[in-house]
């Protein structure tokens, strides 16, 4: 029996039981399409996280204070106040190759007050490079410049949401905003010089709900942020590296500089590159994606059982046909081939329809639904399509073999007598 006959025989058998074949493949269709849909939702979540991390800027390395250790109890990261603005300057002076920008930032909560409004804000004390490194765009005015930092000016840049809350009607540029720090014990008047465009919620600092002021101003005017050595504590030092730089090398160099400066042997700070964070997020999301795919895989297995069930019924119904084929010269192998191929065709057809359906639904789902602040995104993974097809083909094979074996074992004499 040649391959063409095999295909024709199985297509004919499938077509002659149209509705039953359709219902059988439906199990596979639903299984395959849900694998593709759920995996694309999982991958969409991965992409969302990675996009947010990328929105922080590009090629960034973050340095944070390490955890404090008091009485053998390890505190949370950042609980030790070990990072200073001077550390940032030491990194600049070390002239590590491929380090493009270094900036320090302090952030803490405060109240921003105008004559008519009063809102809670995150104050970010930083330098002019911050907007470049984080890729901030300005909708009005300008960002802080080097002059502001040098002269410890009382200029301020507003995040998008803060700007709308404080100045709902007119442009804030040139207006005054009072910052009330530490429950009103320290109050400064700032002049707004710019407004940052909307960025949306992201990882790290929420730029929309922040106000930006020169770090030097904080340093000069607020004594409580100075540590006993007279240096200014910062929450973060951010380094931007050149494109394609060896981040591991840079992290080691930076680490050496800080260890020297802090006169310690083990790091009292944490260095993480953006790529590390993206990698970690990607890993978590991949696990999520596989988990979702696995759940969908269960429905695929159920579909496979459906195929096997129908093939067994089909063998029983076609006992006489098997007898006839055997009488006219079909070997056991020919009968096995016929039934296995029929099961393969059924499940592969289901697989192909399922893939198409899954892709269409994934495409339609993309960005259509939002729960709280989480928008469902879908990214169809080519390998999930390949897996879905291979699995449905495999299911056909597995669920076809046993019924085919049963068919081949029928005694042709008895099969012919079967009414």
């Amino acid at each position, binding site marked *: 029996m040649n391959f063409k006959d095999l295909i024709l025989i199985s297509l004919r058998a499938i077509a*002659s039981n149209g509705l039953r074949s359709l219902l059988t493949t439906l199990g596979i269709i639903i299984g395959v399409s849900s694998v593709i849909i759920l995996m694309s939702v999982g991958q969409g979540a991965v992409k969302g996280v990675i996009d947010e991390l990328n929105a922080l800027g590009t090629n960034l390395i973050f340095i944070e204070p390490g955890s404090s250790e008091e009485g053998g109890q390890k505190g949370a990261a950042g609980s030790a106040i070990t990072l200073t603005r001077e550390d940032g300057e030491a990194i600049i002076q070390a002239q590590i190759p491929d380090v493009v920008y270094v900036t320090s930032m302090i952030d803490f909560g405060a109240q921003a007050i105008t004559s008519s409004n009063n809102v809670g804000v995150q104050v970010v004390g930083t330098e002019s490079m911050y907007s470049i490194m984080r890729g901030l765009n300005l909708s009005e005015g300008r960002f802080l410049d080097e002059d502001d930092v040098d002269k410890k000016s009382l200029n301020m840049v507003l995040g998008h949401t803060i700007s709308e809350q404080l100045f709902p009607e007119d442009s804030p540029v040139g207006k005054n905003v009072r910052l009330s720090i530490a429950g009103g014990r320290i109050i400064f008047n700032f002049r707004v010089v710019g407004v940052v465009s909307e960025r949306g919620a992201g990882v790290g600092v929420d730029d929309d709900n922040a106000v930006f002021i020169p770090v030097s101003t904080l340093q000069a005017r607020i004594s409580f942020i100075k540590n006993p050595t007279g240096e200014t504590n910062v929450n973060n030092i951010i380094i931007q590296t050149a494109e394609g730089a060896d981040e591991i090398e840079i992290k080691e160099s930076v680490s050496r500089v800080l260890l020297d400066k802090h006169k310690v042997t083990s790091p009292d700070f944490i260095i993480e590159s953006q790529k590390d964070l993206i990698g970690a997020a990607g890993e978590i999301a991949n696990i999520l994606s596989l988990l979702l795919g696995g759940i969908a895989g269960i429905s695929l297995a159920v579909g496979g059982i459906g195929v096997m069930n129908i093939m067994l019924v089909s063998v029983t119904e076609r006992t*006489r046909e098997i007898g006839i084929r055997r009488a006219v*010269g079909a070997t*056991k192998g020919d009968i096995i081939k016929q039934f296995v191929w029929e099961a393969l065709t059924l499940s592969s057809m289901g697989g192909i329809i399922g893939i198409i359906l899954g892709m269409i639904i994934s495409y339609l789902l993309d960005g259509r639904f939002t729960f709280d602040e989480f928008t469902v995104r879908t990214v169809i993974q080519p390998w999930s399509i390949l897996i879905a097809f291979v699995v449905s083909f495999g299911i056909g094979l597995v669920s076809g073999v046993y019924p085919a074996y049963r068919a081949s074992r029928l005694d042709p*004499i008895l099969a012919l007598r079967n009414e």
Partner: protein
Amino acid sequence: MIQLKNVDKIYKTEAENVHALKSINLDINQGEFVSIMGQSGSGKTTLMNILGCLDNPTSGDYFIQDSNVSDLNDDQRSALRGLLFGFVFQSYNLLPRLTALEQVELPLIYQNVEDRRLKAAKALDMVGLIDRIDFKPNQLSGGQQQRVSIARSLVVKPKVVLADEPTGALDIKTGKEVMSILKNLVKKEKISVIVVTHESEVADYTDRTILISDGEIKSDKLNK
């Protein structure tokens, strides 16, 4: 051409052993038209199954063209069936979904033969159904269906056609037609045709009648 020597067939069941054939000795020549007659349960169908290589004898030897085939495995028997034998059944045994032409092509599929359609059409022509090529079984009369099944048995150019009660489901007139088609095959194609029947009218069409009863050959005589 066909020779059975001391063939026994015993069916083993849980309760008892059924001795379906007892020491059968039989010679059938090429181009012979033979009937095997007997009551139901006489062993005639068992004999036909063994002759058609659907079954192996329990003991004894079966020679086809001087080679012993009493101990073939399943695949070898399948191949032999496809090459040397054609089968005609009482209930036609056509596949409900196929056209007459496709029914006749069926044995050729398992032989990997070229020009299947042409060969199948020729076989249908031999039984006078060339104008029914595209008809499915439910569009054909009983006699026509039996002629399709005869065409199917002829298409591989067999040495032997085995017909199990070929007229059993037909009225007298159509039964006669079918028998004369078979008779013509013997004459024109030099095929051996073996008809299994319980009707003496059918046996009368053949040249030689073998009477079987209780698993034994009771008589074996040439018809006038």
